[in-house]
């Protein structure tokens, strides 16, 4: 127990150091939020496996490392060439690059944006136009009951800020590339992003978390999305950090009336990965699609927690998270759907809530493990909420069927594994992103197959 307190203290004293560097900016309203967040973190401490939401994920490996906080922009010798493997070939996009959470002007490249739209560094916006950010920042991702979100909030400094004004359509996607380095000290970064899609606007944002170095790093990101009335937002998060990396990410989208959000989270890299994905459907007729794919092998641990909150009636949520676990990896899925008390409006007869959740898992090794837990809390009538979770191996009958037509055993297995993954990868609407992920998934599966054959 004592040790846990010491580990917490490391972050508390880092906060004191961070405060001293703020040079008078500590009087800002944002800083009051940071202080509230660090105070909350001090109360919560790091979660243990006794906490319901962390029952199957121990964060002890993270807390044991004496990470040094990233304190400002340091390019760490990164060049465009070293980032090339992490870009999406053939994708026309504005690209914002962050090194250990801090914006890199020289590695970023912006394309023309619609009039009034903004895409850039959060730190720059906080300095030049804090009012643009204040109504939304730290209003959605709840730090009150999540120690990592609290830590991120306490250390809010930089990350991406994207705003699409009312009625504007962003033609090219925005690619946010978060690079974690591991060249010297083990670094902890807390990238913080805010995406505001105002009423009637359309935008696609892709977040990539990557690590070009082999080595330990800790990324603790938070991204908030605000989708105004009838806004249409596509969001992708691709996680491909180094094997030794710790990655904790919180995503929270707040949706207004008639808005459509589609978010897809793909986890391939990292050693210990935790994603919290939350969506609040806070306006009638809003639609949310939460999709996810995780492919783990070796000793990777990938935990996805999703939380869909139906606050207003006539909203739809669709959720498909699929996992493939090989080696001694472990997958965790917890899908919560919370339906608030609500009643019909006069003249409307459809279902108050239409929610479908599904989490199929494929185990490729008898040492791999999956823990899946749907959780529905419903306080309204006239709703449809369904969930289904499966954990299985490849269908022997399907393998036999393919072989009986001349296809070899290993090829048959690969065809079936790929078909399993494709169902969710095919939901990616941005073709260069889909194509690259399909390639990465195939490569990782191929490496896993070779490891199986060798072992």
């Amino acid at each position, binding site marked *: 127990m004592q040790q846990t307190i010491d580990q917490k203290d490391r972050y508390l004293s880092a906060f004191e150091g961070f405060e001293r560097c703020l040079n008078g900016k500590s009087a800002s309203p944002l800083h009051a939020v940071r202080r509230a967040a660090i105070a909350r973190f001090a109360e919560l401490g790091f979660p243990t496996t006794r906490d319901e939401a962390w029952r199957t994920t121990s964060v002890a490996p993270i807390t044991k490392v004496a990470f040094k906080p990233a304190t400002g922009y340091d390019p760490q010798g990164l060049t465009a060439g070293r980032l090339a493997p992490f870009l999406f070939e053939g994708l026309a996009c504005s690209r914002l690059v962050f090194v250990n959470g801090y914006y890199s002007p020289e590695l970023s490249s912006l394309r023309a944006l619609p009039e009034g739209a903004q895409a850039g560094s959060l730190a720059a916006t906080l300095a030049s136009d804090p009012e643009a950010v204040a109504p939304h920042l730290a209003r959605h991702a709840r730090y009150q009951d999540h120690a990592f979100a609290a830590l991120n909030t306490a250390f809010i400094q930089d990350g991406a800020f994207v705003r699409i004004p009312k009625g504007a359509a962003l033609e090219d996607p925005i690619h946010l590339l978060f690079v974690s380095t591991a060249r010297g000290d083990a670094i902890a970064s807390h990238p913080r992003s805010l995406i505001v899609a105002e009423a009637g606007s359309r935008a696609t944002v892709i977040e990539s978390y990557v690590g070009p170095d082999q080595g330990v790093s800790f990324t603790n990101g938070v991204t908030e999305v605000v989708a105004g009335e009838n806004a249409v937002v596509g969001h992708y998060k691709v996680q491909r950090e180094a094997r030794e990396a710790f990655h904790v990410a919180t995503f929270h989208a707040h949706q207004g009336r008639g808005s459509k959000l589609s978010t897809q989270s793909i986890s391939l890299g990292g050693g210990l990965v935790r994603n919290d994905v939350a969506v609040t459907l806070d306006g009638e007729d809003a639609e949310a699609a939460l999709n996810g794919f995780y492919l783990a092998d070796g000793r990777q641990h990938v935990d996805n927690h999703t939380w869909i909150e139906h606050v207003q009636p006539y909203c739809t949520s669709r959720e498909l998270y699929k996992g493939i676990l090989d080696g001694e990896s472990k997958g965790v899925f917890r899908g919560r759907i919370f339906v608030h008390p609500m009643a019909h409006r006069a003249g409307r007869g459809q279902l108050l809530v239409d929610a479908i959740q599904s989490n199929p898992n494929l185990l490729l090794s008898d040492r791999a493990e999956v823990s899946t837990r749907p959780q529905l809390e419903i306080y309204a009538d006239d709703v449809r909420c369904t969930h289904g979770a499966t954990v299985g191996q490849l269908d022997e009958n*399907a393998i036999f069927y393919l072989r*009986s037509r001349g296809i070899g*055993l290993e090829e048959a297995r690969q065809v079936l594994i790929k078909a399993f993954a494709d169902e969710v990868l095919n939901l990616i609407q941005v073709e260069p992103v889909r194509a690259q992920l399909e390639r990465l998934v195939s490569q990782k599966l191929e490496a896993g197959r070779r490891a199986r054959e060798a072992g």
Partner: protein
Amino acid sequence: MLEIKNLHAKVEDKEILRGVDLRVNAGEIHAIMGPNGSGKSTLAQVLAGHGAYEVTAGEVTYEGKDLLDMAPEERAREGIFMAFQYPVEIPGVNSAYFLRAGLNEVRRHRGMEELDAMDFLALAKEKLKLVEMDEGFLRRPVNEGFSGGEKKRNEIFQMAVLEPRLAILDETDSGLDIDALKIVADGVNRLHTPDNAVIVVTHYQRLLNYIVPDYVHVLVKGRIVRSGGKELALALEEKGYEGFEIEAVKA
């Protein structure tokens, strides 16, 4: 072409085949009939190489080679084809991709050039006509959401594409209405040549009105208890399997 001697096989410790002997020559059509649980489908699955069945005794020679020593895919490449009683649905795997992959494995094995997507499509279109299926079929995932009749027709379509030397039809008639039955039977007849052979596994005589066998074998309790010409099937239709079951007990 195929010679089965004293074949014994079990599934999960239950002995199903208890000494099957059968010889099939090129150009012949054999029907294997029998009541439920007699081992008909087991025989088909064992010949195709399904891993759930364990051969405990006997031997099977195909074209002079030990069939039981071959993996299922090797058997397919050597020209054995089983039309499944329950074709497997494979979500996410496109029918054209699946069948082209299989065909190219078979072609490679035969020392033929592989077909590219265009050539395959031309071939597939031609073969689809045989079972009166339309092209849209090729774009659908393998068997997913197909009706019972579509699945069976798809099996015969695959057979037409793969051009096996020995086709084993496992209860291809089950679940088919009379029109579909005629289409399927007509397809099989048109594919039948003096160079290949067909084994029709069925419970009912009905299919044999359309695919006329040279030989009929009655399988009861894991053994062939009677062999004869096509008239044996008619006798079975009339009298049922009861008499044969008594014979099997005595034997």
